[in-house]
């Protein structure tokens, strides 16, 4: 089976400035790929290249095995794209607008009504279908944008920050929808909200200053995030140097005379030795808790590494 999206060595320059540098990745059916990065990291540029709004300075993009640059019409037929600002004609009603989008995406005339109806249903737009887009709230406009990108049942759906401006309940709904869509399509979704990636994606890519610095499945990421630090609480102050001398421990931070954070290599099983050491020296062990590393920590540590 060919990958839905195959991006090979993509680069993009704006004048002299390099926005995206040598980015390669694949997307398969049933995957939801989260694209993470700070503002200006190159997320939007990459997405615009993937959907043909921007030509890459170098590299190749295959969508369903069709080259996007050589045969743009055929390749784009398999794409649904929601840009960071939803592209809406505000003087149309929701229904008219979606109908027009369906026609633009070459949905056959007799199937249009059905496709529009299904998209409206999926995005919860039935109650506002005859309202003008102009009069809708930002959240509803965002939903119209999402409806527009899925109504022709494309193989690949690219969503640029789909949950911006929505209220928490709507965010839940949209995440649910994305998960549901992800079962049958391939989805790329960009965001700078880390928990969003954790909740809705199956794979993660972190991009910083135009370069991919991490490509991982969510399971792999969770493993990365596991127990690299231990919180240790004792009745008496401990001797930090003794702890540091233990095999596998990299650093010990004192939060207070009774509470410490112990850093260690992921693979070393330090807990036993740490506990034994505390008991042996009779410091009075009170609590020993593994600390989960948050995605923020990984993100910050990865992005700050590339700066140094």
């Amino acid at each position, binding site marked *: 089976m060919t990958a839905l999206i195959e991006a090979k060595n993509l680069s993009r320059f704006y004048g002299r400035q390099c926005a995206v540098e040598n980015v390669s990745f694949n997307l398969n059916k049933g995957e939801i790929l989260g694209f993470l990065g700070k503002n200006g990291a190159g997320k939007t540029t990459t997405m615009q290249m993937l959907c*043909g*709004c921007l030509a890459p300075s170098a590299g190749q993009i295959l969508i369903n095995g069709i080259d996007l640059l050589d045969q*743009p019409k055929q390749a784009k037929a398999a794409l649904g794209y929601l840009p960071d*600002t939803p*592209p809406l*004609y*505000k003087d149309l009603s929701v229904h008219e607008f979606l109908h*027009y989008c369906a026609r633009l*995406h070459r949905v056959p005339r007799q199937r249009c009504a059905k496709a529009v109806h299904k998209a409206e249903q999926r995005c919860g737009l039935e109650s506002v279908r005859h309202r003008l887009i102009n009069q809708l709230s930002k959240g509803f406009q965002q939903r119209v944008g999402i409806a527009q990108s899925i109504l022709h049942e494309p193989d690949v759906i690219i969503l640029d920050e789909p949950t911006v401006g929505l209220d928490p309940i709507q965010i839940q709904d949209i995440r649910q929808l994305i998960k549901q869509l992800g079962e049958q399509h391939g989805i790329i979704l960009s965001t700078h909200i880390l928990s969003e990636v954790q909740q809705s994606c199956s794979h993660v890519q972190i991009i910083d200053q135009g370069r991919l610095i991490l490509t991982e499945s969510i399971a792999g990421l969770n493993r990365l995030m596991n127990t690299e630090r231990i919180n240790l609480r004792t009745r008496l102050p401990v001797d930090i140097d003794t702890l540091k001398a233990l095999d596998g421990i990299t650093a010990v931070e004192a939060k207070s005379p009774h509470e410490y954070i112990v850093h260690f290599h992921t693979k070393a099983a330090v807990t036993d030795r740490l506990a034994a050491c505390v008991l042996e020296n009779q410091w009075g062990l009170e609590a020993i808790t593994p600390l989960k590393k948050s995605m923020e920590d990984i993100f910050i540590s990865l992005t700050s590494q590339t700066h140094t």
Partner: protein
Amino acid sequence: MIFTIARREFQSLFLSPLAWSVLAVIQFILAYLFLTQIETFMAFQSQLAQISHAPGITDIIVAPLFSNAAIILLLVTPLLTMRTLCEERRNKTLTLLLSAPLSTTDIVLGKYLSIIGLLACIVAMTGLMSLALLFGGELDFGKWFCNLLGLLLLTAAFAALGLYLSSLASHPTIAAIGSFGLLLLLWIIDWKAGLQNQSSDVLEYISMLHHFQNLQSGLLDSQDVLYFVLFCATFLILSIFRLEYERLQK
């Protein structure tokens, strides 16, 4: 696909008051000018009757009516075209078209046809107005048709240039003022030659007025028709290139 875009654009022109007000204003002004022209004709009618081979009703009323319509459309067309591509870019709706399975040619031609649709309505209404003369006289239908065709070709050329400037400009008003200035320049470019009594062939060929007047006189010359066709094609191709270039450069 071209027609899908053209139809949607045409409909949205009529969704806002823009198209309606343009139609109303033009119709009102033309009707007023038409009446004054008829008044003039009535005043000179007795004198005209004494001249052999006197200019007929078509020359005295219909041709000036179409000339007036041309001048008004010179002012109005930039206002119609200014928003076509420029507004899409400003509202970021252009991505919808760019990411859909369409070529830039489809986009440009679709937009262009919608404007031509509205302009054709205006030309048709001008034509119908002149047909009112049939109640009291006879028309030279050959000349009438040439006037109609001339005005249509002329406005098609206006629209092509306006569309190109709309693809260049970052703000609709800039597109409007730019296309208005260029059109006016092309309109008057051979006036200077006429003043000094030394006509320049090149300037005369470039001038839109010159070709339009040739058609108005009832002379359906392929050279004049070709001028307008080439003019439209050039600016449409430039607009297509401009959109492509944007994708490459930005």
